[in-house]
């Protein structure tokens, strides 16, 4: 008597399941397009969770800005607008070099890919250096609101001090978390730049560059909003 197949051993596709190490170039996926779609879906899902995370902090900022508009505007005046603008320019240019990197990866140009990725990482690192310098200036001006630091913004007294403390707590949390995200991005991009020199991440394997680029652009997007919120509205 013939036995009927349940389809479980083939996943219904007619092809037998294989262990991942035997499955060929695309692992458990049938073709490159399917792998690419799954990876893109995963990255967008991750970015959505990040948007919700930053969204809560942004909402907190806007609520307190509505409560204490004068104090927040005054506190913003203590920040260094020029350094913030310089950092914005670094990140915007790094997004362009990141997009160029995707193109070079698709074309299989290893050296050009490494150059574009290296430029992105260098611009990101420059951002962190300027941010570190800025934090140093703010610490010297008595603008750090955390325990162990004396919070004494110049020329501010009374109840205004508490509202300005709130601004600087939000400022350091928002920019600090953004900085951590950027540092992770720099690590990933540097690793890819090194790999690109040895012929990795090109042609069919350029998908990894596209995914990291999405993350990089997201970090840039967050800063695009942080800059006017924290530095410009005064």
């Amino acid at each position: 008597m013939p036995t009927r197949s349940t389809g479980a051993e083939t996943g219904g596709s007619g092809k037998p399941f294989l262990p991942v190490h035997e499955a060929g170039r695309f692992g458990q996926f049938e073709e490159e397009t399917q792998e690419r779609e799954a990876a893109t879906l995963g990255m967008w899902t991750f970015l959505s969770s990040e948007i919700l995370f930053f969204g809560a902090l942004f909402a907190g900022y806007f609520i307190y800005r509505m409560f204490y508009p004068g104090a927040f505007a005054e506190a913003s005046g203590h920040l260094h607008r020029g350094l913030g603008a310089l950092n914005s320019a670094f990140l915007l240019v790094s997004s362009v070099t990141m997009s160029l990197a995707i193109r070079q990866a698709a074309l299989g140009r290893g050296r050009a890919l490494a150059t574009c990725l290296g430029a992105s990482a260098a611009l990101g690192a420059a951002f962190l250096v300027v941010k570190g310098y800025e934090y140093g200036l703010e610490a010297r001006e008595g603008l750090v609101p955390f325990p162990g630091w004396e919070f004494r913004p110049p020329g501010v007294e009374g109840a205004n001090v508490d509202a300005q403390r709130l601004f600087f707590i939000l400022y350091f949390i928002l920019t600090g978390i953004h900085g951590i995200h950027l540092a992770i991005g720099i690590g990933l991009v540097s690793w890819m730049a090194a790999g690109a020199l040895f012929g990795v991440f090109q042609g069919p394997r350029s998908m990894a560059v596209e995914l990291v680029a999405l993350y990089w652009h997201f970090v840039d997007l967050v800063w695009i909003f942080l800059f006017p919120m924290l530095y410009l509205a005064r």
Partner: protein
Amino acid sequence: MGAYLLTGLVLLALLGLNVWLSFLLEDIPWALVPLIGIAAVQAVLLAVFLMGLSHAGKVAWIYVGTGTFLLIIACLTLADYFTRTSPLADDPPRAGFR
């Protein structure tokens, strides 16, 4: 390639415009609105031309659509929150530090 460079130049120009506007609108309470508006334009340009949404698949657009919907909902909720006063509170929070 040219489109990327052009987008980069437009983004830098908008950054310059935003900084210039911030000097112009100093001490004006509603200054945040146009400044965030310009930032939103920058974000859309970056998402469409550099993040590749202009030629992205359906998955990306589903996420963008959902995000836009969530943003609208969040704005409506915040608008309600900011315009509502509690009959129990003699001193609503916005009258606090100022």
